[in-house]
């Protein structure tokens, strides 16, 4: 062996060795010195999980602090079908049999067939947990969680659910809560978790669905209300309608976050940080639940009594729906809003089933989810005359000695040719010589026909739409902006809108021209005019307070409770977050003498012997006089829509406290159906004899007490018997 050569070769190997070590050192330095942060983040996302936890929503209270919607915790046993599907059928059956037996023994009657049915239930998304037992005892939770390995795919969740102490009362107004859908999530900037299963609403130790956390896994701060709106995950709850939807940002709890460390197997090792959810704020409604209960009860009784009867033209009185709205004219607060038919909001608590949803939307059911008070639009009939009357004065037309009109019961349209030139009063009743007040009191159509005809003939002088303009000032034809979704804007037809509609769909209309007859129809709230019961009450409230049009409000204030176990209405027990102030949307300028004439007419409706609602007011007198207007709107091939809009107390120098509108389609005359119902509702309110609403939990005792109180006071206030 050549020694020199050996040395060279040894050196070569030495150099190789040095190079290899240098390579290792360089790589080591690259990883630990240069690229560290990226890998450190990977290390954190490896082992740190952030569990999103929804908290209980705020409560919804009535104006006096009575709890209408409460939050309670329900322990739900559910199936996580992903792992169950991967099992062999025999293994799965073993789990199901064992689960059914166990639940049975723990006092939760659960049939094996139910579990199997739910497992195969296609109504739930594949990754959605399928509930098999709601509201179980905490002992069941402990039992199942301790034996989690024996019940793979069985989830025990704690869910904050809604409860409704007053049952169906104010259901439309309150709305309901459901699982957020993808559209709602995207609208709120939420993350769509790709293929991953949705986050559970409340985590359970058995199988929390989690999202990987970021480096600084700190949640949003509690006071940041913006976080409530944005920090949604699939599976979270969200208000789907009514107040629940409109005040979602207040009601929603600030979600909590549990940051946990898991090992390679996914087992929890440590809780790194715990941020509990912060309960949502309480919403105080403008609603007085006692009044609401009273209004709903009488409305339902009235409609149920009407159904099946027939009117004088032998039209069937179907009364498919009805609504009553009571508003405070001094600030726009809605004191009661009843819509019939109603529904039981508790069926929505664990998600509305498809059958239930179909039933709710079946037209034969009367569409109980619809809040007719703001979603229903009806021909307002003679209740519209208030605006026509105002138009007469506001335009100046009636100031020229044209206020007194002879009403023979029939009016012949000027410059009219053909056989449809005569328009009549209801029943062609002649009212003789009438002025404005009298015309309103007796509901002379001829008076307003003439006014509308003149307007149309004198468009040069008064413009094409003096009536519509006046009605618009009272809020017709546009949404009242009540903070509730789905409001119908109604309809206020004009020559321009008629033309546009015709041009858009010439096949649907006979003509695009506006004629005298259209003006005449509009003047008495017929033709194409539509108004919602809410618009009606708000416009009469506007007149009642002297012309200030308020935005209807349903919330008085938002508070943050200090202790949920203490009474909700104790001022020491909450912090005021927000007070809802009245919002003035517009002011109707009415000259005092003109105001007086219209006012006299509306007061006469109930107080004069000739008034259209005089008899019914006499039958159920309120503590103070009321002023208002009946309406009987004709609908082709159906019975008339009965309407009444009024306020009380009426009287000079007495501020109006309550405005009310009652609308029942296919039910008959306004003076015979809607007005009496309004007085029956208003009477105990005016006497201060309103009985407290009964929570469903002690319905019997409460109703008995109410009856006793009623008989003691001598006022038959609970009876819903028809007139």
């Amino acid at each position, binding site marked *: *062996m050549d020694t020199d*050569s*050996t040395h060279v070769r040894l050196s070569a190997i030495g150099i190789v060795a040095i190079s290899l070590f240098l*390579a*290792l050192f360089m790589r080591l330095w690259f*990883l630990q010195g240069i*690229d560290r942060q990226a890998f450190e983040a990977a*290390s954190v996302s*490896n082992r740190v999980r952030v569990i999103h936890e929804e908290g209980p929503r705020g409560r919804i209270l009535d104006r006096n602090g009575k709890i209408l919607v409460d939050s309670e915790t329900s322990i739900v046993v559910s199936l996580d079908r992903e792992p169950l599907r991967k099992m062999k059928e025999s293994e799965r059956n073993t789990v199901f049999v064992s689960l059914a037996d166990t639940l049975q023994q723990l006092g939760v009657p659960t049939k094996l067939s139910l579990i199997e049915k739910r497992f195969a239930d296609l109504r739930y998304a594949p990754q959605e947990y399928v509930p098999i037992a709601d509201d179980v005892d905490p002992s069941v939770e402990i039992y199942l969680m301790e034996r989690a390995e024996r019940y793979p795919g069985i989830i025990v969740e704690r869910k904050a659910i809604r409860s409704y102490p007053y049952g169906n009362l104010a259901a439309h107004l309150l709305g309901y809560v459901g699982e957020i859908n993808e559209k709602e999530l995207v609208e709120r900037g939420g993350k769509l978790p790709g293929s991953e299963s949705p986050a559970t609403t409340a985590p359970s130790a058995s199988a929390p669905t989690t999202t990987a956390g970021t480096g600084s896994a700190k949640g949003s701060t509690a006071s940041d209300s913006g976080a409530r709106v944005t920090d949604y995950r699939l599976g979270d709850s969200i208000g789907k309608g009514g107040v629940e939807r409109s005040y979602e940002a207040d009601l929603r709890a600030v979600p909590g976050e549990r940051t946990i460390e898991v090992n390679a197997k996914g087992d929890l090792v440590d809780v790194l940080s715990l941020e509990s959810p912060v309960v949502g704020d309480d919403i105080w409604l403008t609603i007085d639940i006692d009044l609401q209960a009273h209004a709903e009860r009488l409305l339902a009784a009235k409609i149920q009594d009407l159904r099946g009867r027939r009117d004088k033209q032998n039209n069937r009185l179907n009364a498919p729906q009805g609504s009553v709205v009571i508003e405070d004219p001094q600030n726009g607060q809605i004191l009661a809003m009843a819509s019939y038919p109603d529904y039981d909001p508790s069926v929505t608590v664990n998600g509305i089933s498809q059958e239930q949803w179909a039933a709710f939307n079946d037209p034969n059911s009367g569409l109980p989810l619809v809040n007719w008070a703001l979603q229903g639009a009806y021909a307002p009939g003679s209740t519209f005359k208030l605006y026509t009357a105002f138009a007469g004065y506001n335009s100046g037309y009636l100031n020229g000695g044209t206020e007194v009109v002879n009403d023979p019961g029939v009016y012949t349209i000027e410059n009219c040719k053909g056989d449809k030139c005569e328009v009549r009063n209801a029943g062609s009743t002649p009212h003789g010589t009438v002025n404005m007040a009298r015309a309103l009191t007796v509901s002379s159509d001829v008076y307003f026909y003439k006014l509308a005809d003149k307007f149309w003939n004198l468009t040069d002088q008064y413009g094409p739409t003096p009536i519509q303009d006046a009605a618009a000032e009272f809020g017709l034809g546009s949404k009242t902006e009540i903070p509730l979704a789905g409001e119908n804007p109604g309809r206020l037809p004009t020559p321009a809108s008629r033309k546009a509609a015709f041009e858009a769909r010439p096949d649907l209309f006979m003509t695009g021209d506006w004629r005298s007859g259209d003006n005449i129809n509009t003047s008495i709230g017929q033709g194409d005019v539509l108004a919602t019961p809410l618009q009606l009450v708000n416009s009469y409230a506007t007149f009642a307070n002297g012309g200030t049009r308020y935005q209807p409000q349903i919330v008085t204030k938002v508070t943050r409770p200090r202790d949920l176990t203490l009474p909700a209405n104790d001022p020491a027990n909450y912090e005021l977050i927000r007070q809802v102030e009245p919002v003035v949307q517009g002011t109707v300028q009415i000259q005092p003498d003109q105001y007086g004439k219209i006012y006299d007419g509306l007061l006469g409706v109930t107080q004069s012997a000739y008034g259209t609602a005089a008899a019914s007011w006499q039958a159920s007198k309120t503590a103070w006089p009321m002023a208002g207007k009946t309406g009987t709107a004709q609908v082709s091939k159906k019975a008339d829509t009965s309407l009444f809009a009024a306020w009380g107390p009426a009287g000079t120098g007495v501020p109006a406290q309550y405005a009310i509108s009652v609308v029942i389609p296919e039910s008959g005359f306004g003076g015979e159906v809607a007005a009496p119902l309004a007085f029956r509702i208003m009477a105990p309110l005016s006497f201060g004899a309103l009985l407290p609403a009964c929570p469903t939990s002690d319905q019997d005792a409460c109703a008995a007490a109410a009856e006793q109180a009623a008989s003691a006071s001598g006022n038959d206030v609970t009876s819903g018997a028809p007139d």
Partner: protein
Amino acid sequence: MQQLRVDRQSPSGFRGRDVSSAWKHIDIVLLVATGLILLFGLVMVYSATRRFPGGTGILLRQALFVVIGIVAMAGVSLVDYRRIADWWQIIYGLSMLVLAGVLSPLGSLGAFGTKGWYAFGPVVFQPVEIAKLGTVLAVAAYLGSAERVDLRRLATALLLFGVPMGLTMLQPDLGSALVFIVVGMGMLVVGGVRVRHLAVLVILGVVAVFGILQSSALDQYQKDRLTAFANPDGVSAKARYNIDQAQTAISSGGLTGYGLGKGPSTRLGYVPAQQTDFIFTVAGEEFGFVGSGLLLILFAIVIWRIWRAAQLAADSMGTLLCIGVMSMFLFHIFENVGMNLGIMPVTGIPLPLVSQGGSAVVASCIALGLVQSVHMHRYS
């Protein structure tokens, strides 16, 4: 007093023949570096296994093997390597027999269906570790005794490497097969094989490596692990997982690491096979660049001292023996640390003296004992 002085002086009188005289030439630096690495290794095995239910047992076992290894190292170093080399045919023959035997029903099935172990009750023995040593010894003895390496001797030497390589391929144990190639190359380079023969061998070696990679002898998991390093996106998530977790653990250790027992990946068991093939991640995560760099420096010192022993060796047999051990260590270190760092493909190669596993620790100690023997007996 007098008696004591005589005693003190006595070793010099027996220079060369007495056992104690060999001690005088022990490589203290190599010994200390070896000891520190063994200690470091125990600490890391502790950290990697403490979360296991039987973690303490694993640690105690490993400590026992370290002690056995040190004793074996001392024993081997005291014996002149030439006396051991006299027995090379028997040692080689026996180690091949044991290596072949593992393929028989006597061998135990290991992970992924490979056969590389003997299990006698609680004692598990990996014959390839002995086979590596036997082969190095055999080739050193065979080539070292020759004046020059002619083709016949080259062919014989290649056969000596080829047999254990083939046997490990049959297990299959790709990493160990590669060790024989690398050790063979190292020893043949230093052993005086002609340059043109070497060139041919290099070409053959490259062809062999590609052949192994392409052959059906490899299971898909092995190919996955091997290609994961070259083509990170094209492999299964499972194959990537090892690599990602190892790099994540090492990198997040940063400059000084999380501290012993505090590394999250280690603590929570995110790195698979962490006490064996991926033990370097413990050093990386818990002791950072400072700690893992120190470990690399200690290994570099070991390699340097072996290389130095090769230079100082009294004869070419000693030189070849040292180069064989050095090549083996170098490949083990580079491949193992390299795969931990994500620059080498993942193969089941332990980190010498550190990875948990009795056979490897004892064999590594014996190998270093042989090096010490070469160093200690260079004047005799």
